[in-house]
């Protein structure tokens, strides 16, 4: 039961000019995500996953429809207002880590903390890095860290200001299986501890298996939705052919 959804979109559409005509990337998406929910968006390449994430996070503007965060419309906000909103409520984890190359691990984590005006940001950044197992490597530059370590720094950075929503875009896409599993485990732990709403985008059903709800996209539309973590096999599906494997 959803009272005020953390995140909500209605008739969300995105069209891009392509050659002479318009290409519909997303068409009429309706979705509501509750506070604290772990929701995964799944689909093959080109299904519109990343576009949906960009729109939900206010990184991009829809062609049609609306997006609300905590009941407040965000699709009509200015770039500056969106920046302030992100700083207060939204965190990100990317496939390619997106750490700033000229900053150390600690400084990368510090950045959003300082921006959000968190008290004693340095202590909090140290603590977060310790939580992701990098307490000893705070002064290393991204280029001196492995892919998994970089992604763990990115996780620490994302959770730092305690965002109400965290978007993760293929967070394990550039990592080997074991490292990816460790990162997902950490993501789950942090989600539990911080009660953050988590929106994960992936093409990998295995990565999405811990999500409370899995939204399958195909060709810019919702194909089906599954509920419940799939690992225990109690998943239920709606609008589709049933639980995934």
């Amino acid at each position, binding site marked *: 039961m959803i009272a005020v959804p953390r995140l909500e979109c209605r008739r969300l559409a995105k069209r891009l000019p392509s050659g002479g005509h318009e290409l519909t990337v997303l068409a009429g998406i309706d979705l509501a995500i509750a506070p604290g929910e772990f929701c995964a968006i799944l689909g093959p390449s080109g299904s519109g996953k990343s576009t949906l994430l960009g729109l939900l996070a206010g990184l991009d503007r829809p062609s049609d429809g609306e997006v609300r965060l905590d009941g407040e419309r965000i699709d009509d906000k200015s770039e*500056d207002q969106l*920046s302030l909103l992100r700083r207060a409520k939204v965190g990100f984890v990317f496939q390619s880590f997106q750490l700033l190359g*000229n900053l150390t691990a600690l400084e990368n984590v510090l950045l959003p903390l300082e921006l*959000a005006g968190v008290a004693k940001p340095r202590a909090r950044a140290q603590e977060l890095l310790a939580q992701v197992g990098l307490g000893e490597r705070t002064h290393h530059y991204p280029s001196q860290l492995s892919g998994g370590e970089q992604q763990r720094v990115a996780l620490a950075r994302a959770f730092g200001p305690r965002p109400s929503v965290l978007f993760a*875009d293929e967070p394990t896409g550039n990592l080997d299986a074991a490292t990816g599993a460790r990162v997902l485990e950490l993501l789950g732990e942090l989600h539990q501890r911080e009660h953050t709403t988590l929106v994960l985008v992936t093409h990998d059903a295995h990565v999405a298996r811990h999500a409370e709800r899995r939204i399958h996209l195909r060709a810019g539309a919702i194909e089906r939705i599954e509920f419940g973590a799939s690992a225990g096999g109690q998943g239920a599906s709606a609008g589709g052919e049933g639980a995934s494997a």
Partner: protein
Amino acid sequence: MKTSEVVRAAWRESRGAGPRLVFFIACLALGVAAITAVSGLVDAIEQALAAQSRELLGADVSVQARRPIGERVDAYFAFDDARERAQARETPTLAAANSKSRLVELKAVSANFPFYGAIKLDPPAQLGELLDATTCAIAPELAREFGLALGDELALGGQPFRVAAFVLDEPGRLDIAFTLGPRVFVSLAGLERSGLEQYGSRMRYRELYRLPSAPSEAQLADIKRRINDELEEAPYLRIESHREAQPTVRRSLQRVESYLGLVALLSLVLGGVGVAQIVRAWVASRTQSVAVLRVLGYRPREVLAMYLGHVALLALVGSALGALVGSFAPHLIAQLATDLLPSGFEVAWSPLALVRGVALGVFIALVFSAPPLTAIWRVAPARVLRSDIEPLPAPRVVAWLAGAAVAGGLFAASLAQSRDFAVAAGFTAALALLAGLLVLGARGLTRAAAHVPRERLDPYLRNGIAALARPGIGVVGATVALGFGVLVITLMGLVESRLSERLRNALPADAPSVFLLDVQPDQRELVRTLLEECNATSVRDVPVATARLSTIDGVPVRELAQRRAGAEGREQWVLTREQRLTWARELPADNRVVEGALWSDPARMEVSVERDFAADLGVRVGSELVFDVQGASVALLVSSIRTVEWESFGINFFLLAEPEALEGAPHNVLAAARLDVEQERKLQSALAERAANVTPIGVRAILEKVLGVLEKLALAGRVLGLFTMLTGLTILAGVASTAAVHRGREVALLKTLGLTRAGVAGLFGVEFALIGLVSGAIGASAAFALAWVFLERVVELGADLPWPMLGVATLLTALASAVCGLAANYRALASRPIESLRG
């Protein structure tokens, strides 16, 4: 976001910046060095002037006039019982010895002169004690010229004076001031014996005061005001306190500073262009970081603040470095060019010049980084998800503000340098116009390069042209910067060489080469004979009466002068100066009446006034001028306004009266004639012997003096222009090295394909030479065009430019550019072929 966060973020961004740092710092350091050098030098001279002001003036207060100063002035200083008074009189006159003669600056002083500062004599002595009615002290260069030793005799006004000492140093006599000849000191009694002080002589009188009560500035101002209000002769007096320290020298110093300051600013502005180039490349390489920052919630203006902070940090380092280097310049000049600075001056460090240089450097860097930094607004946060995302449109107001920042910044900087609103506005507008032209030229050439069918060309040339056409590697910026450098140097070289040449050949064939001042009426025939003996041509002599203007249309001149009290210089001076009137029935050939008619009112005595002078006086046809001619009041009606061809160098006057008007007035005669150099010397000797009171002024010598000053200024201008050129080359090297990484791969590939290292160097050399060729061609052409306009239309001297130099300048730029580009790619050239196998 807090300032400390901006500083921290900026510091982080500075790490690992590598070559960007070097070129950024170099671009600014050069310009700031030029600016600091100029203002440091001027500051040093000003400081010295202020610190030694008493010594320079020789007194606490000096009262100066072109006529004897009345006793009533002394009453105004009576408040100080312990006051001391000294006198000095100065005039240019002929000195002769050993059958040689020349013009000298004679100064007659009372025994207690000067109160402060010492006139250094060889053998050491007190000037006042040394001089009596029969002795003199002379400058060593005069002694050398005449072959005089101590005890020898020198004739002044036909009277012999024994040389008692040589003047080694005289405070207050500056090289930058205009002097007619070497110094000769005599006593007041000596001056009287020489008989040089007679009617019409060009004597400058000076009363000097030592005031032990040390009156404040306000007290002195009050005395001045009272003298002005109460004394009839006040308009003719110049009262100077040591606190004002050489106002005329300071004024010309300020003009020099304004001119050189702007030339120096040019190299800083170019440095700004370089900074813009570097920032543009840097922001482009940081698009992903900007996108991440945007995703993290930074607003564009906060990202801007971060990047501006970084710019400011680098600018501070570069400017400080430049200021430090530039502040050595006055010391270097003091060591190398001793004659440029007044003797005995200690060059002091000028912290103000340092601060000023650093401030201007940082300011220009910030202002010029504004336009490239607007790219921040165009970075879409969604770029973190897809790299092909469309850039956002930058808000119009941001682009507009960035443009305004550059224009406003330029204006503010030129105002700071020139301290003149109109000059600053003109300078900014001219810069904008030139930059626009250079950008257009550079763009046009890169476009043209893209369309040149290059398939059949030599591979070296093909590669070079292709590089010119390659978009977005900063070719336009580098071309503009280098072109500006070439423009400045070429333009200054052209204008200076043409001006000096014109001045050297300035004398029209029949123009007089010598003027004879202070000829007494009874010497008129003698002078004519002497001139004839020397085979003089174009001989002319006219009577001159000196007078003071009393009223214009019934309004006393004193009142008019007071009304103009705020205005400096000419405006007041035209009213209060000693007016020189001549009279004649006919107009000289080079005069033309443009308004009214000559001697047209039979009932009135008339005067004809030169047009510009009439405008300065504020008179027109029908005005009435009343003159005080040595005590007699003469009213003259302005019946005509005329123009004078001053370039003819003939005898001409602002005021020409009807002959009957000044009949019987005391006067002397001004003669002029043309002689060759040899005959001029002969005439001088003859005059020294037979009419010693007559002062011959050689036009050639004066032109030489002007040339000397012009050459010094032009040299300084060209040295500063060199800084501009260096900055341009630095920018070019910066552009070249930004592309060096990419070039390393290119070199490896080319070597794999079989090109030798020298071959690759040749390939790149051609490319950079082409950029230089384009910059050189545009810059030098613009310089020739501007020089032509200036010489032909502004100073109307006729251009006659050395057109082949256009090609030489262009080729030299190409060469410099090739050398510079190769030097910047030195490391890339060393890439090994194996590297082409790695991705």
